[in-house]
């Protein structure tokens, strides 16, 4: 496999991510439209689904905010292009910015300069996992700003514990209201430390909508939070309704005896992610979308 072949696959992933929803999210939105009882909420879900359909048909970004470019890379140590991946991703982002197109979204926080190609210091950001074997599993995860702006860190005490976590999530999502473009997907990370719980929280947004955690105790908390957050009545786009979240996913790491860190990551309805597995010989399988 050549670097340019991999670059093309990454451009495809970026294009899929911003122009078409993953199958699970699309299904969840359709289900929400069927069950929504508020006429304004229903109107918003109809507009969302119509928008998604047009974006897919015309292959143009479903939202003008095409995000900050984040990748989740799980790569076998025997994958031939391992060391070149950062450069390949950067090249693909530059290429995709032109060809898809993506909105130029990288701003230097000190100098206010926008290079116009969606790259720059630490962007694209890569979350690495090195595994055994020779396959590359990669997810393009362009993350929008509206939902990112309501993400939160809660450094709770062990005494506050899991009940404190639930209260923190509910209060934060009520405060967020219409801002993150509901119906949202909520990711929660518990434990580790300040950085680790945030990282875990965001990683939960990769889990398909509708899948419960394998640990029944965690699955129960996920269900409770889904029901509680949908009881708020915030509804699609915060205009009122039954559908405020499409799902809640919780992940965890061991915690320090003195700490109970909780990370909250929020994803808008335009839950853009696209994944593929690439073998060392260059065979490509797209796993999040149907690809013709």
């Amino acid at each position, binding site marked *: 496999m050549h670097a340019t072949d991999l670059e093309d696959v990454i451009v495809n992933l970026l294009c899929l991510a911003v122009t078409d929803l993953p199958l699970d999210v699309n299904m969840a939105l359709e289900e929400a439209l069927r069950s929504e009882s508020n006429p*304004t909420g229903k109107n918003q879900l109809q*507009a969302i689904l119509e*928008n998604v359909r047009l974006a897919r048909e015309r292959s143009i970004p*479903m*939202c003008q905010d095409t995000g900050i470019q984040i990748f989740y890379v799980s790569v076998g140590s025997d994958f031939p292009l391992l060391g070149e991946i950062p450069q390949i991703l950067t090249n693909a982002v530059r290429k995709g910015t032109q060809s898809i197109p993506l*909105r130029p979204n990288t701003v230097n926080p000190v100098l206010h300069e926008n290079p116009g190609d969606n790259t720059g210091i630490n962007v694209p950001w890569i979350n690495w996992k090195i595994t055994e074997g020779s396959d590359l599993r990669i997810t393009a995860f362009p993350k*929008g700003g509206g939902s990112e702006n309501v993400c939160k860190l809660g450094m709770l005490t062990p005494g506050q514990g899991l009940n404190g976590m639930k209260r923190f999530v509910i209060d934060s999502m009520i405060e967020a209201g219409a*801002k993150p473009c509901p119906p949202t997907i909520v990711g929660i990370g518990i434990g580790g430390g300040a950085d680790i719980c945030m990282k875990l929280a965001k990683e939960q947004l990769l889990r398909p909508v509708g899948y419960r955690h394998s640990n029944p105790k965690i699955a129960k908390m996920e269900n409770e939070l889904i029901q509680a957050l949908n009881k*708020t009545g915030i509804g699609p786009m915060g205009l009122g309704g039954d559908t405020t979240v499409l799902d809640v996913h919780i992940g965890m790491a061991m915690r320090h005896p003195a700490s109970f860190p909780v990370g909250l990551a929020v994803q808008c309805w335009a839950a853009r992610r696209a994944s593929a597995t690439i073998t060392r010989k260059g065979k490509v399988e797209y796993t999040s979308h149907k690809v013709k």
Partner: protein
Amino acid sequence: MATYELTTPVSEEEIRKLRVNDIVYISGKVFTARDEAHERALNWFESNKQLPIQPKGLAVFHCGPIVRKKGEEWELVAAGPTTSTRMEMFEDKFLEAFQVRVVIGKGGMGARTAAAMKKVGAIYGAFTGGAAVLAANNVRKITDVAWLDLGMPEALWILEVERFGPLIVAIDATGENLFEQVKEGVEQRRQEIYQIAGLSKT
């Protein structure tokens, strides 16, 4: 929950008929303005400088679009609304200065804007956040652009739209605010929400 078709420039009388939860489709001239364009417009107003457009009766759209140039023409690729609360610090002065009749955005606006809308005769129309293709689909063309020095998202894009919507009237000219109504509902249910999550009352 009635549906209305409006054509810009919109009269004050037409606007005062609308109520929260009504659905509106707009045709005619609409311009985009985000944080920096609001700030500059108000600075220019204070120093008696003419804006590049005549905003009276028009709709201002909180939007930073994706555009590309095809030959001499600008092409609109995607144009969903941005979060309106960032403009809360400007909008009341903006409405009074320019008599814009419709503010289009997402996420709603606060008490200052609602009061100005009541006074001036304007509404806030919520467009579905993120629905950028649907929005662009209802834009017939980009007729002009000003203040491109502010960058693509912040520039003042002047659009000709046809049945742009659906917009949900979320603040009407009586000062009613749908987002505030939703928030009040959430507060009333707060204890019940905690209980569903297995939490005791506070």
